[in-house]
Every structure is written in structure tokens, then in C-alpha cells.
């Protein structure tokens, strides 16, 4: 049979439990805006009943702590989606920089022309104009000035692309060092969690680890593997170990063929990282795939226009009656009537199949300074002949660049690039929407809702008041028992 004493101890335990629970609520409210904080719920446990004289009597309640409201599957799903979205955001940013170099020309006359497509047209049009009067100095000057504009625009676009590539390498290197510090922190947290809470949720330590994982997911593509004692191993998407419980492995950088590559334990994992996700993946995709592809198109345009125009001009007769001849001692394949500087790989290609166009765009310049050296006439005809100018104007309609005319090639190039940017934009929008959705789901579970806390506090307050009333009543009862009817002895 229960006693008044036991009832008082039981209700005292209830008051303690309510106070503990109230401090959990207070902690939630205090951390309502703390990044990475996970909402906690008080844990109530019914005390084991006591059997006295064959009768079971309840023994009250104990507050045993608090549990973080966490869904590991959802958190990992959110991390993965963040990796994908961060990769496409980073890639999209650099694709936008690439397409900004090739803004469509909206003007309709040659006076307002500004893009490379117009430059190509204007250059060949200058030869068409020269047909009307091959000896006219102003028309010859126009050929050289439009050649300079073309070469200048192509080489400045190519140089910008090279600059962007270098900037992306720098960004990627910066990210690698952030990754290293985060993996180091996660390894340290693994050790702490394993020692303090090997078989249960580690609360704030786990919040910290999750926040580091979330940051890491912005930066690099990762897989998470839960290990025993609440530990965590992290690998890159392609399986290279970054964190193994208490140990972390550093990403290092090194220069390979002039580009910054990324190593893990001596293995070059640059290409795996590029396809892995995270900002690092996005930057490396842009650096190693998108920029080289755009640069290759510009190189082809520069290479084939330069070599074809140079070849035809050297074959003709200039205003002073000279024909092109190899420049003595030249190792780059330069001829005397070259309009453009010979592409860097030209000499090597004379011996090979002539398809290595690398570096042609950045190096494109006009070497001819004397407009009289433009060979409007064909060999054997007088200097008033225009047939070589007709030939050179006709290059505009020849399929010299990848079996297309130069302008068609450029048109396809900008269309393809635009489609790709637009595709990545659409992907990125969808991925961000998906991240938002997952974030909302996760917040619904794990973030502090002040209305809930107010309700909980109100409930706990009521319950505390009720317990206090019971305690007061028991106190009175106890006094009556001690006084044995004498009301004044004990109050």
C-alpha cells in the first residue's frame, strides 16, 4: 500500500521532470535561429511500479533527456541533391561567362556589327569590294582593317577563355583546401561522437557533423557510409576515401601539362572529381570540358581562315607585282605575303595531317602592314586583275572549317553553345527546386517551430501547476495526519 510519503516523492519527481522538459523547450527556443540546430524533444520515461502487498502502485515519471528530431535518410538525400545542384550552379556561372563573350549582334548594318560572325562576313566582304577596283588603296586598307578586327576579336575571346580557365583552377584549388579543413573537422567529430555516444544520437555533436557534411556537399561530391559506434566514413562519389572514422585524407594539387590537377594519396582524380558533383565538380567540368570545347571551335575558325587566306594571298600577285615566297630562315612556315600570322602549330602540321588547331585563336594576329601586299591579281596577270580577290572573297562560301563555311560553322557553334547553356539552366532550376523541396521536408521535421514550443510550454506549465497543487494537497494531508486531529500543532 502506498504512503503519503511515497506519493509526495512521486509528485516531486513529476515536478523535476516537468522542469527538465521545460529546459529542453527553453533550449529549443534559444536555438530557434541557430544554423544546423536540430529540434529536440524531451524523453519521458514511466518509472517501474512498486508492488506492495501484492498491489502494484505506479511510481511516477522521470525525464531522461532529449532526442534530436533527425531523419538520416532525408539528410543524406538532401546532401546528395545539394551536390548535384551546386555542380550545375558552378558550371552555369562559368557557361554564362563564356556566352557573354559571344553576345549576339543585334544591329543590321555593318556599321554596328560587333560579333565574330559579323567580323568574318566583313573580312570576306572587304575582298568582294576589292573586286570592283583591285588597285584602290582605300579598299586594300579596308581588307587589312577588317582582318585586324577579326583577328583581334577572335584572339581576345580566346584569351578571355584562357583567363577564365585559370580563374577556375584557382577557385577549384581554394575549394580543395576548404574540403580538407571540413574533412579534418568531421574526422575529429567522429572521434568525439564515438567516445561520448557510441550507440545513440549524439545531439549537438551530431548537429555539427551534419552541418559540416552539408557544407562539404556544396563543395564536392561525396558518399557517406555509417560505421560502428556512430562513426562515419566519407568517400568521393567515385569511391576515394576522404574520411575514415577518425582519420582524414588531404586533397592535394599539382600541375600536369600546364593545368592544375587534384590528387588523393598520389592518385590523380581530377576527371573523377569533375563528374562527381559539388562546386568543385562544376568548376572542373567547365574548365576541362566547356571551355576547351568553345576554344576548339574558335581555334578551328582561326586556323582554317588564317591558313586558307594566307595560302591564296601568297599564290597571287600583289600591287607591286610580287608573288609570295617562304620567308628565309622561318621555322613557322611564314611566307612573304601572309596576311595573318601562321598558326603556332602550322609548321608541325605541314608534315602531319594539318588538323592540330590548338592555340590558333589566341595567337591570331595580322602580320601584314602594307596594304599593297594584298594579292588581288592572279599570277601571270597584270596588277589590275581582280581574279585572286574573287578567289579570296569566295573563301567565305567554301566549306573550309569542319566541312562548313566559316559563317555557318560560327552560327552552329553559337547555337550549340546557347543550347547547352539553356539546357544547364533548365537542369539547374529543376535541381534547385528539388533542393528546396527536400529542405522544406527536412525543416518540417528538424527545425524549431515556435508555435510547437509555445504549445509544449503551455502544456508543461499546466502539468507543473497540477503537480504543485497535488503536492500542496498532500502536504495538508500529511499535516492532518501528524496532528492527529489537533489542527494547530503542525500547519
Amino acid at each position: 500500500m502506498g504512503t503519503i510519503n511515497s506519493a509526495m516523492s512521486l509528485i516531486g519527481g513529476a515536478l523535476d521532470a516537468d522542469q527538465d522538459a521545460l529546459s529542453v523547450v527553453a533550449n529549443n527556443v534559444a536555438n530557434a535561429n541557430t544554423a544546423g540546430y536540430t529540434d529536440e524533444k524531451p524523453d519521458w520515461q514511466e518509472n517501474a511500479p512498486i508492488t506492495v502487498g501484492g498491489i502494484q502502485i505506479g511510481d511516477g515519471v522521470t525525464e531522461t533527456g532529449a532526442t534530436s528530431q533527425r531523419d538520416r535518410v532525408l539528410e543524406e538525400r538532401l546532401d546528395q541533391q545539394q551536390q548535384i545542384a551546386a555542380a550545375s550552379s558552378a558550371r552555369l556561372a562559368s557557361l554564362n561567362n563564356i556566352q557573354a563573350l559571344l553576345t549576339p549582334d543585334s544591329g543590321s548594318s555593318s556599321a554596328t556589327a560587333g560579333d565574330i560572325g559579323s567580323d568574318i562576313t566583313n573580312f570576306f566582304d572587304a575582298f568582294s569590294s576589292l573586286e570592283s577596283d583591285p588597285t584602290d588603296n582605300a579598299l586594300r586598307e579596308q581588307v587589312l582593317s577588317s582582318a585586324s578586327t577579326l583577328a583581334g576579336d577572335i584572339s581576345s575571346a580566346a584569351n578571355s577563355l584562357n583567363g577564365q580557365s585559370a580563374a577556375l583552377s584557382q577557385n577549384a584549388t581554394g575549394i580543395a583546401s576548404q574540403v580538407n579543413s571540413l574533412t579534418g573537422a568531421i574526422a575529429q567529430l567522429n572521434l568525439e561522437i564515438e567516445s561520448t555516444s557510441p550507440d545513440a544520437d549524439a545531439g549537438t555533436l551530431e548537429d555539427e557533423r551534419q552541418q559540416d557534411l552539408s557544407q562539404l556537399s556544396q563543395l564536392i561530391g561525396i558518399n557517406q557510409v555509417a560505421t560502428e559506434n556512430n562513426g562515419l566514413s566519407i568517400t568521393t562519389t567515385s569511391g576515394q576515401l576522404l574520411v575514415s572514422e577518425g582519420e582524414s585524407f588531404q586533397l592535394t594539387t599539382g600541375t600536369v601539362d600546364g593545368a592544375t590537377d587534384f590528387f588523393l594519396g598520389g592518385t590523380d582524380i581530377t576527371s573523377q572529381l569533375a563528374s562527381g558533383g559539388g562546386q568543385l565538380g562544376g568548376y572542373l567540368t567547365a574548365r576541362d570540358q566547356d571551355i576547351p570545347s568553345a576554344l576548339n571551335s574558335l581555334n578551328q575558325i582561326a586556323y582554317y581562315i588564317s591558313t586558307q587566306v594566307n595560302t591564296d594571298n601568297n599564290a597571287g600577285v600583289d600591287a607591286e607585282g610580287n608573288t609570295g615566297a617562304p620567308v628565309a630562315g622561318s621555322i613557322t612556315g611564314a611566307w612573304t605575303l601572309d596576311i595573318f600570322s601562321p598558326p603556332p602549330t602550322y609548321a608541325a602540321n605541314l608534315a602531319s595531317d594539318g588538323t592540330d588547331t590548338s592555340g590558333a585563336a589566341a595567337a591570331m594576329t595580322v602580320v601584314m602592314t602594307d596594304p599593297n601586299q594584298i594579292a588581288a591579281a592572279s599570277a601571270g596577270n597584270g596588277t589590275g586583275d581582280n581574279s585572286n580577290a574573287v578567289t579570296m572573297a569566295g573563301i567565305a562560301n567554301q566549306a573550309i572549317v569542319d566541312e562548313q563555311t566559316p559563317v555557318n560553322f560560327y552560327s552552329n557553334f553559337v547555337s550549340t553553345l546557347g543550347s547547352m547553356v539553356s539546357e544547364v539552366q533548365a537542369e539547374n532550376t529543376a535541381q534547385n527546386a528539388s533542393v528546396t523541396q527536400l529542405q522544406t521536408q527536412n525543416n518540417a521535421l528538424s527545425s524549431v517551430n515556435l508555435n510547437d514550443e509555445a504549445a509544449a510550454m503551455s502544456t508543461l506549465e499546466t502539468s507543473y501547476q497540477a503537480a504543485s497543487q497535488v503536492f500542496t494537497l498532500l502536504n495538508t494531508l500529511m499535516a492532518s495526519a501528524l496532528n492527529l486531529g489537533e489542527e494547530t500543532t503542525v500547519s
Partner: protein
Amino acid sequence: MRVDPTYITNLVNSLDQTQANEQQLSSELSSGVSITSLSQNPVGAGENVLLMNQIQQDDSFTQSASTVGGQLQVADSTLGDVVTQLTQAISLATSANNGTMNASDVQSIGSQIAGILNEVQSLANTSYQGQFIFAGGGTGVAPFSTSNATSPAVTSYNGGETVNDLVLPNGQKIQLNVPGDQLFLAGGTNSVFGALNALVADYASGTVNTQQAVSDTEALSSALNYVSQQRVTIDNSITQLNAASSATTNEQTQLTAAQTTLMQADIPTVSTQLSLAETQQTALEDVIAQLESVSNSLFSKLQAG
């Protein structure tokens, strides 16, 4: 069901997107251009390159056509003058050949024809903007010169044989010149200078070998007809050039219209979109304001109670 308590953050994201949309639409309105980056309309951007190419080719041809037109007109009117001079020479020769003139009259006619010869030679050496137009490819040097070392004197051609063409944007070619030797030194009885030099020699002594002089006069007539025929080539080029110029101008107008349709922002559509975006923004702001006032959370109610 628990809801995401940070839903206002999502609303603010929507507000950001709406504002970005408004920014894009305003920039289309202010620049008047609908495609400001490749990704907005990749196919349109590619098409624009091709349209610009054609428009600029047409533009460039129209400018060339005016230069070339001038040159062809000069060639045509020069040949007109040559025809006039030759007609006069034939009538002088015919009068000298009828046997009624005395020696000094015949010599005077001889010297008049010599004057015509000089005149025709200078017409054949006509230059346009510093270039000799009947010199084939050798436009830098006067193509015709006469040597009086022999009798009859000999006029020779130092020019080239090149025929220049102007290529139209559609690939068609227009002939720009006729080499001088084809016009004035064509073989047999078609040689203008041959006939004129022969007539000058015929009348130089005052005694006319009628048979020879009549034969030389007939040769000059034949040469005159030949020059007229050759002049038709130049006239055809002028006609072709005029036709091509007006066709090109028409094409350019159409292409420019097409390009304008492609690239220019459709103001009514963009304005409507902008207005919609503004409405959306206002609605979002109102929603946020409303939620702000009701989301003072249960705590405020508890306090009030």
C-alpha cells in the same frame, strides 16, 4: 502535420526570382533587343549570324555596285565617243575617195584623219580613278602607243588580256571590262588603229590609190561595226548591274525585316509580361506582410492571455 516553419524564406526566394524576371524584361524594353544572350534563344542566335552575313554581303555589294557602275558608264560613253570619231573619219575618207579632190585637199583630209587617230588613241587610253580602263590587267600603264617609224604607222597594245568580274552575292558574275586590243586591234578588217593608220598613209602624198583607199575605208567601217558590237558587252554589264543592285536592295530590305522580327523585343508582349511580373511581386509582398503579422507565433497570444 508539421510544416516548415521557415516558409517565409521560400517566399523571399520567389520574390527574388520575380525581380530577376522583371530585370530581364526591363532590359529587353530599354534595349529593344529580345535575344541578349545565346541561351535565351540558341536557334535564333545562330539564325541571326546567317541573316547578318547575308545582309552585310548585300550591303557591301550595293557599295561596290556604285563604284563599278561609274567605271562601266565611263567605258560606255568613251566607246560612244569613239564611234562618233570613227563615223566622222569614214565620211572624210569617203569624200576623199570619190576622185574629185586636189592633192592639197586630200592631204588635208589625211591630216584630219591623223587627228582623229590621235583622238581615238587618247580615248582608248582613258583612265578612271587613275586606272586605264581598256588595259586588261595592266591598268597602271597607258595601253596604246603609235610608232611612226614605218608607213603606215603602227599602233601597238601594251596592256593585259585579263577580264575582271564582279561576283554578286548570289554567285552570278558581271564582266567589268573588255581588254583594249579586243576593241581596237582585233584581227583582219576589224582593227580600228590598223584601218586609221592605213588611211593616214593613203592620203599622206596627196595622190590617192582609190582601190587601196576604198578597201581601207571599208575596213574602217567594219572596225566601227565591231566596236559597236563590243560595246554591247559593256551595256549588258550595266543592265545586269542595275538589275542586280535593285534585286539586292530588295533582298536586303526583306532580310533586315526578318532580322528585326527575330531580334527585336515585341514591346506589347514584353510590357504585358512585365505588368504580370509586377502584379506577382505585389501579391508576394502582400502575402509576406500578412504572414508577418499573423506569424507572431503562439507566444504572443499566450502573453496576451
